[in-house]
C-alpha cells in the first residue's frame, strides 16, 4: 500500500536541510542504500533551493510544499512553489544554465543524475512543481526469498 506524507514550510534557506533530511527519513522505509539516500538528499536540496532562490527570489514569505509518496518500491517527491515560475522550462533544464554567475546551473543536472525521473511543470506567475522519482530496487533484479 502507498504511504504518503506532506511537508509545508516557509521559503527560508534554513529549511533546505530540514526538507532533505525529512524526505530521506521518509524514503528510508523503502530499501534504499545509504548512497541512494544521499542522492535523494542532494536532489531535494536542489529542488528546494531553486524554489527559494528562483521561485520566490529569496523572499521568505513564500511557501514550499513537498509531497512524498512511497509505493511499489519507489519514492516520488513533488516540490512545489507558488512563485514566479519558469518561462522556458526546456532552457532551464540545459546543463550550466544559470541566471546567477555564483550558482553553477547544476541544480537540474543533479536532480536528473540522482533520480530516475524528473518532470518540471511551470507557469509564469503561478509557480513551479518539480516531480522526481527513484526506485529502491530494480524490479525483477532482487532474488526471491527461499523458504
Amino acid at each position, binding site marked *: 500500500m502507498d504511504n504518503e506524507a506532506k511537508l509545508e514550510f516557509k521559503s527560508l*534557506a*534554513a529549511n*533546505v*536541510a530540514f526538507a532533505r533530511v525529512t524526505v530521506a527519513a521518509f524514503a528510508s522505509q523503502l530499501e534504499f542504500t545509504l*548512497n541512494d539516500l*544521499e542522492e535523494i*538528499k*542532494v536532489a531535494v*536540496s*536542489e529542488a528546494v*533551493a531553486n524554489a*527559494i*532562490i528562483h521561485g520566490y527570489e529569496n523572499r521568505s514569505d513564500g511557501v514550499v510544499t513537498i509531497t512524498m509518496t512511497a509505493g511499489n518500491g519507489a519514492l516520488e517527491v513533488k516540490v512545489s512553489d507558488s512563485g514566479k515560475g519558469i518561462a522556458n522550462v526546456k532552457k532551464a533544464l540545459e546543463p550550466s544554465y544559470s541566471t546567477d*554567475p*555564483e*550558482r*553553477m546551473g*547544476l*541544480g537540474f*543536472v*543533479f536532480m536528473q*543524475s540522482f533520480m530516475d525521473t524528473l518532470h518540471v511543470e511551470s507557469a509564469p506567475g503561478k509557480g513551479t512543481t518539480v516531480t522526481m522519482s527513484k526506485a529502491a530496487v530494480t524490479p525483477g533484479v532482487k532474488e526471491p526469498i527461499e523458504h
Partner: protein
Amino acid sequence: MDLELELEYRQGALFVRPHGEVDLSVADRFRETLEENLAKNSVSHLVFNLNRVSFIDSSGLGVILGRYKKLAQQGGRVSLVGAQPQVRRILALSGLLTVMPEYSSEEEAIARVG
C-alpha cells in the same frame, strides 16, 4: 544556520576547513568569510579541506567555483583535499575535479603546488 569554518593563513596559502553541511543556508556566509580573508591576505594558493564536510550541493559548490574563478584570474591556485566519498561524487559530477587538483592531505597540496 551557522557555518563552522576554520581558516588558517600560512606563507601565501589559505587553508579553508568547513565543517558540516554546506548548502544554501550557509553559502552567503561562506562566500563573505572567504572574500574577507582573500582581501586581507596575499593568497596564491587556496586549499579547501573538505574532510569534515558531510554534505554539499550546488550552492556550496558555487562558492568554491566562484573563488576558483577569481583566484585563477590572478594566477593563483585552488586545491581540494580530503573529500568524503559522497561529497567527492558531487565534485566529480559537477566537473570541479577536472579544473582543480585533488590531494589526499593539506601537506601533499602544499608539496605539489606550494
